[in-house]
């Protein structure tokens, strides 16, 4: 297991280097001049301002030098200055990333609870009415466009019936809890600010619900398929031959092996949540990575784009590592070899 972990970590580092390189080259290929994008009208009439801008941000250096300088800085935790917010990118990300991760974790936990439960119900009732109904539900979940779901949910649950709070991470006028993790729910709990915690959690519900619609549908289908496959195994028949209640057979003997496939899909789903967040964050005015990425992209803020790429890549790598570790927890055969 330790050797397995060491190999995975080494691969992760290489992957990170590769991703920064690709992201770096891609940003250079974009037809657009950061100086023009940031200086606007002045870029046309004031070549000196342009030259000063390029010198300030090191854009006059050859590309490989720019890349190496960048990597050197990244290793020291310096992701550069955002040309858009005029703050260090690292500082921006420390603020925006937790907002998105908090949202995505909420959404994935919700999706796993609902999606796995419904998938099991569908599999156990194979071809009977609950299965038929759930098939339509999961199809709906994966086929409805997220932006549309977001708008409808926003209109109905917030505007029309006022069941849930609308945009933002907190009620208007409320001060964020003291920064510790960047997750408002955790920070509020740490500071003992229960009213802030309630507000932060309440604000998470609507956007994470919207994000979860797709992943619930996806997890339901995979859970159903995986459970049906496991149900055909000899060891399930053996469990039934022991006279165990069906509930125990499903929860202990079927769901555990089925989880191997389910967490694989959940890992991928977590990635899709991050990209879904771009739309949802804009609709719900959620100050997260999605909004930051969008603004960096339209402003050609190269350090910002690079920072976002690195963070997203790191999250993907971490999730995959976590999934690999969970395989070992679920299946002792992996742990033992």
């Amino acid at each position, binding site marked *: 297991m330790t050797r397995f972990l060491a190999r995975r970590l080494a691969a992760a580092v290489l992957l990170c280097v590769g991703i920064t390189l690709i992201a770096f080259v891609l940003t250079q290929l974009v037809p657009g001049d950061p100086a023009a994008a940031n200086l606007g009208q002045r870029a046309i009439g004031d070549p000196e301002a342009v030259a000063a801008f390029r010198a300030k941000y090191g854009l006059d250096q050859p590309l490989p030098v720019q890349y190496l300088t960048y990597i050197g800085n990244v290793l020291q935790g310096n992701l550069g200055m955002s040309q858009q917010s005029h703050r260090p990118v690292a500082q921006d990300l420390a603020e925006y990333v937790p907002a998105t991760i908090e949202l995505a974790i909420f959404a994935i936990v919700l999706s796993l609870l609902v999606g796995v439960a419904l998938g099991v119900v569908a599999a156990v009732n194979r071809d009977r009415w609950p299965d038929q109904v759930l098939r339509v539900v999961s199809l709906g979940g994966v086929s409805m466009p997220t932006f549309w779901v977001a708008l409808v949910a926003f209109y109905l649950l917030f505007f029309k019936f006022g069941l849930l709070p609308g945009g933002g991470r907190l009620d208007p006028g409320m001060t964020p809890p003291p920064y510790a993790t960047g997750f408002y729910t955790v920070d509020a709990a740490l500071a003992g600010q229960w009213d802030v915690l309630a507000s932060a959690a309440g604000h998470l519900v609507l956007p994470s619900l919207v994000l979860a619609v797709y992943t619930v549908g996806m997890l339901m289908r995979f859970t159903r398929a995986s459970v049906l496959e496991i149900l055909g195994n000899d060891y399930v028949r053996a469990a039934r031959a*022991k*006279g165990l209640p069906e509930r125990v057979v499903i929860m202990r003997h079927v769901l555990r092996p089925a989880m191997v496939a389910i967490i694989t899909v959940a890992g991928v789903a977590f990635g899709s949540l991050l990209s879904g967040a771009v739309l949802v964050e804009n609709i719900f005015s959620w100050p997260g990575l999605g909004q930051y990425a969008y603004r960096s992209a339209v402003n050609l803020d190269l350090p910002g784009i690079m920072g976002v790429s690195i963070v997203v890549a790191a999250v993907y790598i971490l999730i995959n590592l976590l999934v690999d570790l969970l395989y070992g927890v679920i299946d002792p055969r992996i742990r033992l070899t």
Partner: protein
Amino acid sequence: MGALLEVEDLTVWLATRGGPRKAVDGLSFQVDAGEIFGIAGESGSGKTMTALALLGLLPHAAKTAGRAVFEGRDLLAMPARELRAVRGRKIAMVSQDPSTSLHPMLSIETQLTEHMRHHLGLGKSEARGRAVELLATVRIPDPEQALRAHPAQFSGGMRQRIAIAVALACEPRLLLADEPTTALDVTVQAGILRLLHRLRRERDLAVIVITHDLGVMSAVADRICVMYGGRTAEVGPREDVLTRPRHPYTRGLLDALPHPEGGAATLQPIPGSPPALGAVPEGCPFHPRCGFAVPDCRAVRPEPVLVASGHLAACPPDPLGGAA
């Protein structure tokens, strides 16, 4: 003395794409307490479906008819809930391949104690203590250590011993052993068969051994039922059936067995192959492959009739009768 299990006219239909097909057709037999009863037949003869029918574990959408009276109650008519209380508690099963019938991700302790705790209401430590005894009974070295292990850490023979320990955990009255030795080496086979023998002696356990291997049969069974096409071809005491077979199919199976002194030349395969599900011929199911068939065999479905004390054969022409 009443039989422990009395199966009468058991019929099993399996759902196939072409509609329901008979896999077992009017099978009757009985098993006494402490008896080892063998069911022999080629694959597709309905032997496994017979065992699954008794436990109510037939595949999706299968149907049954007939009766299977166990300790005075009909298993086939029992509500699911009550049948669950019989499964694992009174009737236990050991299946063919222990590498697939033991759960690969659960510890031996969990698999050995979960049904004890459920059926017998034992606490964790009590169940654990009994699990250690059980593993010792089936001769697993270092039972304490084995409880913490997972199936992948044992050899095939050890796994089958563990599977038998699992089946014995709640002290059942009847053990259904479906090809218990088929997946194992010959030397390991002998050990498992000795174990079954010993358990029967020590616990008055009745065992139904299902196998295609007449060699295994001759080693353990008190009485043997030979099945063909979902029906009984012949049933009787081991000695009678194996040395004085009265059904040409049994004779064919015996001729197809290798003899230590004979070499390959004496092997006599049965021509043709067993009927597919739903394609069992009219009349005697064996007649297309039978060297003794007479015109009647094609038309009349033979019922098993008494040919000697406790020995029934479903072959009215009785071509082997003189050999007795």
